[in-house]
């Protein structure tokens, strides 16, 4: 798998990670955890609208919305919630947010399921923790497929 198959924003993130040493990659992941946007108020007040990804080591909730210009080409917006005490989980969410937010359903569904492995973090983070990110991506794709009627 190469980054050519990825949407451009996600490919750029993967390239950044791959160009770095392992300690720098962890630092970058920390920056993504800090860059994860807050939930908008309408979701903050309605935690029941978010779904928990139980495979993550720390509580991580997410949801998607498709912008209302109709049809499968509408932009998909991603929303995540994870506590500040879980920077690794927040970091994964930050990567997926920056890499996928605003893309079309087709673009998101085209992301390979094992994309998280491209970040080169498995050794530093451990496979156990990487599973959480893979599960997050899987949940996003399932929700996008269900909402758009496009088969993944």
């Amino acid at each position, binding site marked *: 798998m190469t980054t050519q198959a990825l949407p451009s924003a996600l490919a750029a993130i993967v390239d950044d990670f791959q160009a770095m040493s392992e300690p720098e990659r*962890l630092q970058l992941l920390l920056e993504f955890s800090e860059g994860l946007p807050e939930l908008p108020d309408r979701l903050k007040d309605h935690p029941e609208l978010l779904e928990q990804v*139980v495979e993550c080591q720390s509580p991580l909730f997410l949801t998607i919305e498709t912008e209302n210009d109709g049809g499968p080409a509408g932009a998909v917006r991603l929303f995540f919630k994870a506590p500040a005490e879980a920077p690794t989980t927040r970091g994964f969410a930050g990567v997926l947010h920056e890499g996928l937010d605003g893309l079309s359903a087709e673009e998101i569904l085209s992301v390979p399921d094992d994309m998280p492995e491209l970040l080169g973090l498995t050794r530093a983070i*451990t496979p156990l923790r990487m599973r959480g990110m893979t599960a997050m991506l899987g949940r996003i794709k399932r929700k996008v497929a269900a909402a758009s009627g496009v088969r993944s």
Partner: protein
Amino acid sequence: MPYPVEQNEKFAAYAHPERLVSTGWLAAAIESGAVANGELVVVESDEDVLLYETGHIPGAVKIDWHTDLNDDVTRDYVDGAAFAELAASKGISRDSTVVIYGDKSNWWAAYALWVFTLFGHQDVRLLDGGRDKWIAEGRELTREKPAPARGDYPVVERNDAPIRAFKEDVLAHLGKPLIDVRSPEEYTGQRTHMPAYPEEGALRGGHIPTAASIPWARAAAEDGTYRSRAELEALYLGEAGLAEGDDVVAYCRIGERSSHTWFALKYLLGFDSVRNYDGSWTEWGNAVRVPIAKGAERGSVPVAVGS
């Protein structure tokens, strides 16, 4: 040179008060320069591999339970050479006083302390209440990573037998007390992992026959500190039915929550023989032909196991 032991009324009631320090004591030790001059080494050990980087106790070094303490090939802890290198690189010498703290009421800190004990490190203490209490009290955090002078640590082979139980040890132990520290849902077999935690793929749900269910968190107060000696006695001697001098094995899912209970039984209540079964339910729940019990009842010792 061991650093002086904290004296206070709560700790004095415990069997081994020298194993705990309070946040106030640690703050004063840092203030006095004991961490900066290497008399005291403070170690943070968290579940989340990046949490230390978001801010830690000034002067604290980081040890990750997974990447530093687990061997990445064999399902086991690192060997003597790797541990010596790790310790030295963190500024720890064989005679250093080490204070460990972490997130989640010290699960991973207790686990790290247990691994230090496998290597026979003499003076290793737990920060009562851990990271959360330090933060709740508004104490200083920093992102500055210390660069400690290398410690002098010999290659010491682990001595597992006194405090670590393997599956075969647990089979041979059946009939003697076992403490299951997982959630009630995991104990009964309703689920095989912690609520809202990763599914680690145990094929059977339930518990080791005869094990008493005392979820780990019951040993901790609201602020994450250990409960008083009297409260711990009510829990483990009263409710679990342990008696003085018992040989006890504690287990959970992967051995980290049970390290927290192991610490309470070993150092706070003073049981001489307490072992942590780190294979725990991820091994037992998948092992072929080991007996399990389902439901809320403890169950009975099966006859002729494996014969």
